[in-house]
Structure formats: structure tokens, C-alpha cells
């Protein structure tokens, strides 16, 4: 920490997500809810550390937003955080919340993922603000993330509407200095006053919707008027031969690559301050727009009749970088420094790729090892989680994957449309509670003969280990009620349910066979084994390879475990490498031991 100026202000390095949490806490947020999703996850994790806030994991993003909306109707300041595609899940409520309005401030954090580092698409969620007709704030570093979050609550209450705070991976997962007031005064949680009824706002029956729509339209004009002089939109005058309009993290690239030129930095990306834009455009020789993903601002500026230089030189695909902004500037003949001189990439030796892999000990390994053996007459409908890696070698056992919970619905549709193959849906525990329940009910109701494999690793693993209804532990660390998946499946009407140990290779295979033999209706295979990063994971003595016995058949390599390596020893006849186990990586899960046809792998130090 670095002390600056007054004694009570400290400069601290915070990620964008931590800064959003800090800003929300400073804004007296009372309730916050989220479903984990990269790059948004740490917002709620961080917020749960502050006193006086009730923060929780919701079972999905719509539930998170609905919960936040209820709190805001009651007068509390409330926040819902989600990744960009999570907003799609919550969109049904979000669109109507624009009409209902709110009492307490309601902030929806949308963490977009340009570059699709951890996502299924690169959608630009500024469009939601325009679509739903409410404001969108777009911070460019952690300090702004803190300030804009505070402002978002104020704006939401001033204009009685939800406000989107839009982050991106590069903001959420970058750290930059934030000014923090020290010491942070502890705050007690304050119960709400009695509910103030406002059915003419909050009960959005058609008559209310028709009456509220003009209010929504007027509100947009009011917010636009406010934004004309709001400090979040600011001009940094420089060389006036070029004026650049920019927002979000793109501003940081502009200020480095195009240093010295005039910049209009837009903090409120919807609705735009049109007079300010005209004033800026009128005082520079040429206007350029640099923004990440869609030409959201650019199209609106062009629609105002303002000429924008270059025919969209800034790429619309992928994350922006300093290099891409420089490239675009050079292409459009804006005067910038040439690209730096580059060191040649290594070409003397071939560099093997390093794709992600299931961890040593992962409870998904034995399932996928078995699943790929039935690939010939089967279709695998996948879902979102670590088990999406089932698509990668050596398993290559996933044929479709689109969104959270979609595995079950897609499997159902394919089967009902007449597929003669065995159709599997593969879904994780957290994803099952997110959006797997209703498609399973649908499969029972419409009687499709599909096999739903629920890979229950007792955590939301891909996002770094978050709790969910199936673990029963809340975000605040309280022991709640754990919902068991097998009884839920039976209660939904599934007649064939198998429960298996995730590391029981033969048992899983038998269950797969039995499930494929089911004559009617969906079957559920529940594969239970805790993720290696949970406290429930049971580490056992590491295994070793007896090189005398090993025939270099390669069976163990096909379980795709990073702890299984090629030894230097080769088989005299085939010349193939025998196996060896890295004792630092091995967790003793024994999957390789079980698949070895000649019992060359054994557990050290006894069985337990």
C-alpha cells in the first residue's frame, strides 16, 4: 500500500472486479447476487468479505437479477453480477425492469469477454442498454470501476431504472491503483422499512406496460441530457488534427498509441451525449472512433451525420490490444509511432502446443475414458464446465455445446427427431441446478430415451471453486441445506437413476451399458466425486509403473492425465515408450491403474 496526500487515503492495487465490489460497498449496497462466470466471478467473492452486505450465489443469473430486483423494489441498493452470456439468461427480467423502474438502486454488472478467453461468444453487451433503454457505464481501469459503480447506484435511483455497469475481461482481471479510504468503517446490516406498495409500477400487466413505456422513452432523453455535462464523459484536448472518441479499456490503448491527440472519453456509453460529441467533432479536423467489439458508438456518431475517418479500421473481432490499435492507426494513416522492432519467434525447434487438460485426479477422467469407448453409435451433447474439455484429445467425446443447461434439451430434441443413436447429455452439478432441471422435466414429460450424465464434482469448478445448491454451503460460508441430485431426478419422474463413484472405471462402464439398454424415458447417471481443489477430495498414495511388466501398450496415455509421462525406456519389440508417473502431480486416483491391462501400475505405500 502506498500512502498519498491525506493520511486516510491509501493507494491499493485492485482488480477491476475487486474495485467494483469496493465501489458497491462504498455505495451502501445491501444485497448482491450472482452466478459465477468468468470474468465476473470475483465481484461477489470480494463483496462477500465486506460487513453489512448480504452477498450470495444464485442458482442462475436470472434468479440473481430477480433477487436483486426484489431487494431494489423494497428500497435496498442491490447488485447482480454476471458474465456477458449470463445477461442473456437474465434478459427476460432485465427488459421488464426497465419498465417497472426501481426504488433502491439496481446495478447489473455485465462482464464481457472480448477474445472469448473463457466464453462461447464475444457478444457486446452495450447493446442491452440500447435494447432495454437504460444507462450503461463503461469504466477503463480499476479506479473508474470503483467510481462508476458508486455512480451507477446514484443514477439508478435518480432515474428509477436498472443501470448496466459493463466490464470486460481486461478490466475485470487487470489490477491498477485504487484510492481507498482507510480505515474502512465497519457497517452493520440494516433491515428494510415496511414495503412501499407501487403496483402501478411493479406489476407489469399490459395496462401498466403501456402506461410505463412513455416514461421509459422520456427517461432516456433525461439521462442523455444529464450525460451532456456529466464528468464521466470528458474531453482531453490535444493536437486537434485528429479527435478520437473512445470508451472502456480501449481508452487506455488510445492514450498510449495516439498520445497527444484530442480524446473524447465516453464513460456513459448509452445514451450518448450528442451535443458534446458535436462540439468535439466541430473542433477537430477529423474524428475517429476506437472501441472494442461492435461499432456501437461509431454507428451512432455516423448516424448523427458526423464523418468518421477510416472504413472501420479497428478490428471487430477479438480483444483490442496496443498492437491492434497501432496497426489500425497506421492503416488509416493516422500519424503514430511505427510498430516496435520484433525479436524473431523460435523456429529452430518445433514448440509443442499446451492445450488445457483435466487435472491429475480429476473426477471427470474415468467417465470420459469410458464414454469415448461407446462413441461409434452415440452422440454426445455437452454443457459448460471443466468437462467441456471432453471435446479435446484424448477423449474427443463431445459433439455439441451451446449454452448453460442446453445439453439436456439438445439431446432430447435430437432423440425425438428420430436419432437412432444413443444420445447422451453431459452436464455438471452446478450447471444442472443452473438450467438443467427444467429440460430434464421436459424430457420426462415428453418421454425421450436419452441418457443424462450428471458429473457431480461438488463445486462450480471451472470458475475456480464456487459453492452451489448441491453443496449446501453459502457464499458467506454458512452451512445451508444441500440438495441431492439423485432424489431430485427421481422426483422429476426419472425412473432409472444410477449413482457411481467417479473413479470406478468398470462401474461407470456398466452403468453406461445399462442406461443404453433402458427401453423408454430418460435415464440419469450420476457420477459423484469431488473436484481435486475441494477439501473433500481424497488424496491417496501415488502410483508407480513397474517397467519390467509395462508393455508400452499406451492404454494409460489414453486417460489423458498430465501426471502420466513417457519414460525413457522403450519396449524392445515395438520401440514404443513405456509409461512413468510424475510423483509430484499424481494424486493416487488409480484410474490409470484400473485401465492397465497387464497390472504394471501399482499403488505405493499400501492401498490407503
Amino acid at each position, binding site marked *: 500500500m502506498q500512502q498519498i496526500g491525506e493520511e486516510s487515503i491509501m493507494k491499493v492495487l485492485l482488480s477491476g472486479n475487486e474495485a467494483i465490489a469496493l465501489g458497491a460497498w462504498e455505495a451502501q449496497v445491501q444485497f448482491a447476487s450472482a452466478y459465477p462466470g*468468468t470474468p465476473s466471478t470475483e465481484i461477489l467473492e470480494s463483496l462477500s468479505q465486506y460487513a453489512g452486505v448480504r452477498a450470495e450465489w444464485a442458482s442462475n443469473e436470472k434468479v440473481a437479477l430477480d433477487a436483486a430486483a426484489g431487494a431494489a423494489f423494497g428500497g435496498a441498493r442491490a447488485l447482480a453480477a454476471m458474465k456477458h452470456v449470463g445477461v442473456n439468461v437474465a434478459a427476460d427480467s432485465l427488459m421488464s425492469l426497465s419498465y417497472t423502474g426501481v426504488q433502491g438502486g439496481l446495478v447489473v454488472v455485465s462482464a464481457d469477454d472480448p477474445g472469448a478467453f473463457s466464453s462461447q461468444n464475444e457478444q457486446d453487451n452495450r447493446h442491452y442498454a440500447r435494447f432495454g433503454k437504460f444507462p450503461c457505464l463503461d469504466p477503463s481501469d480499476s479506479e473508474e470501476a470503483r467510481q462508476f459503480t458508486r455512480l451507477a447506484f446514484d443514477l439508478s435511483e435518480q432515474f428509477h431504472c436498472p443501470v448496466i455497469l459493463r466490464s470486460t475481461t*481486461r478490466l475485470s482481471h487487470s489490477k491498477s491503483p485504487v484510492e481507498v479510504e482507510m480505515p474502512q468503517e465497519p457497517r452493520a446490516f440494516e433491515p428494510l422499512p415496511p414495503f412501499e406498495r407501487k403496483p402501478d409500477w411493479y406489476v407489469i400487466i399490459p395496462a401498466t406496460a403501456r402506461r410505463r413505456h412513455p416514461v421509459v422513452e422520456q427517461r432516456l432523453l433525461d439521462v442523455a441530457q444529464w450525460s451532456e455535462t456529466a464528468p464521466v464523459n470528458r474531453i482531453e484536448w490535444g493536437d486537434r488534427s485528429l479527435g478520437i472518441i473512445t470508451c472502456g479499456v480501449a481508452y487506455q490503448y488510445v492514450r498510449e498509441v495516439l498520445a497527444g491527440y484530442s480524446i473524447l472519453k465516453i464513460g456513459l456509453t448509452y445514451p450518448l451525449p450528442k451535443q458534446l460529441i458535436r462540439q468535439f467533432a466541430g473542433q477537430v479536423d477529423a474524428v475517429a472512433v476506437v472501441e472494442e467489439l461492435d461499432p456501437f458508438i461509431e454507428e451512432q456518431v455516423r448516424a448523427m451525420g458526423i464523418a468518421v475517418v477510416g472504413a472501420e479500421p479497428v478490428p471487430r473481432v477479438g480483444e483490442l490490444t496496443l498492437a491492434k490499435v497501432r496497426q489500425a492507426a497506421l492503416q488509416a494513416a493516422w500519424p503514430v509511432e511505427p510498430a516496435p*522492432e520484433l*525479436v524473431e519467434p523460435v523456429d529452430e*525447434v518445433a514448440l509443442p502446443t499446451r492445450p*488445457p487438460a483435466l*487435472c491429475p485426479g480429476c473426477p471427470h477422467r474415468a467417465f470420459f475414458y469410458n464414454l469415448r469407448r461407446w462413441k461409434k453409435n452415440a452422440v454426445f451433447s455437452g454443457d459448460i464446465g471443466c468437462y467441456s*474439455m471432453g471435446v479435446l484429445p484424448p477423449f474427443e467425446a463431445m459433439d455439441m455445446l451451446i449454452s448453460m443447461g442446453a445439453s439436456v434439451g439438445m439431446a432430447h430434441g435430437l432423440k425425438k427427431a428420430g436419432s437412432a443413436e444413443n444420445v447422451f447429455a453431459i452436464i455438471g452439478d452446478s450447471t444442472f441446478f443452473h438450467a438443467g432441471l427444467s429440460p430434464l422435466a421436459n424430457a420426462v414429460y415428453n418421454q425421450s430415451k436419452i441418457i443424462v450424465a450428471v458429473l457431480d464434482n461438488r463445486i462450480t469448478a471451472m470458475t475456480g471453486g464456487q459453492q452451489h445448491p448441491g453443496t449446501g454451503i453459502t457464499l458467506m460460508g454458512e452451512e445451508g441445506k444441500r440438495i441431492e441430485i439423485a432424489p431430485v431426478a427421481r422426483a422429476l419422474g426419472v425412473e432409472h437413476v444410477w449413482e457411481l463413484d467417479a473413479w470406478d472405471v468398470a462401474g461407470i462402464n456398466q452403468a453406461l451399458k445399462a442406461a443404453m439398454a433402458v427401453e423408454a424415458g430418460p435415464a440419469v447417471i450420476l457420477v459423484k466425486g469431488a473436484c481435486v481443489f475441494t477439501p473433500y477430495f481424497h488424496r491417496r498414495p501415488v502410483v508407480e509403473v513397474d517397467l519390467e511388466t509395462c508393455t508400452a501398450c499406451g492404454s494409460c496415455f489414453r486417460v489423458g492425465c498430465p501426471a502420466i509421462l513417457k519414460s525413457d525406456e522403450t519396449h524392445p519389440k515395438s520401440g514404443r*515408450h513405456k509409461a512413468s508417473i510424475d510423483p509430484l502431480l499424481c494424486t493416487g486416483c488409480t484410474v490409470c491403474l484400473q485401465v492397465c491391462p497387464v497390472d504394471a501400475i501399482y499403488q505405493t505405500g499400501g492401498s490407503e
Partner: protein
Amino acid sequence: MDKMNFLFVGVGGQGVLTASDIAAQVGLDLGLEAKKSEVHGFAQRGGVVESHVRWAPLVGSPTCEKGTVDALVAFELLEAARWVDWLRPGGTVVVNTQRIMPMSVTVGDATYPASEAICEALERRAGRLVRVDGLTLAAEAGTTRAINTVILGALSAVLDTPAETWEEAIVRRVPAKYDAVNRTAFRMGREAVG
């Protein structure tokens, strides 16, 4: 020193992100502005991890531009080779000589190049190449989990920065019970640089 661009690279689980956190904090402690940036999530499971750290009086982008990295800090040999083209001509490479086999090698689709071949390729491109046997030194210090501290020790010796600033930033970041082992690991890394 008033300006540095670092690129930390390695394999998920090696402590790359913690090390880059500490490096960013050191920049701030030296009175500069500091920013860092990385990507979490899907790629992290045994995949490549990259983290950018920048120090300057005023930092814009949280990521470096290719060709402007002053110090490439590689926690794994193959990753040093993969990322060396981000270096500015004349830049420094600090590399942990540990080899971690990617799945593509294990399943037989690819071969891991010989260590010497990689080091020669790095030597040709870097102004200065510093090799550190992080795994051995960390084990000697008390735990193989302190590899990242060993590497920070080596990095601190390469840069013109006071050792105390680094050491303090490290002990502030790690649990108190690991103070001693991390201080030892840091010094061993620092002394390993000739």
C-alpha cells in the same frame, strides 16, 4: 529505473499469477504507477498462463505490446521459447529450467525439444539470459511450492531494485507461517544470478 514491462509466463498451478501480483506491488512500492493483467478460466487447467506487469510514472494499457517486454520471466522452459518473441531487442529472459510435459507430448503427437536447444534459441534472442533451477533451489529452501519466490529472487538481482522492497512485498503476500522459507527461497534465487 522508471519504466519496466514484464511478461510472466508458465503453466497453470506454478504460481505465475502470485509472482506477477508481487511484481506489480513492488512497482507501486518503488513510487511508480503499476498495472498488471492476466486471463483466468478455461486455459488455466494445465494450460499456458501469461501475466503482464508494467511499471511507469503513468501506465495506460494493462498489457504490454509485443516487442516491448524488458524482462520475460518464464516459469517453464518451453514457455520461455513460446513467448520470447514478445521481448524487445536486447531484453532479458529469466527462465526456470524446469520442463513440464504438455499433453501433446505425453500422448505422442509432439516432442519436447532438448533443453540445450531451447536455451541456445533463447540465447540468440535475449540481451541477457538468466537460467535458474527453480525446482531444486525451492526444494533446498524448504518447499517446491516456493519456486515462484526463487524466480522473483533471480529477477530482483537482474533489475536495479533494492532486495528489501521485493522481500517485503513477498512476505506481505504469503501466509506468515511461510515467511522464513520464502525469505530463504528469495535469497537463494537472488544469489543464483551470477
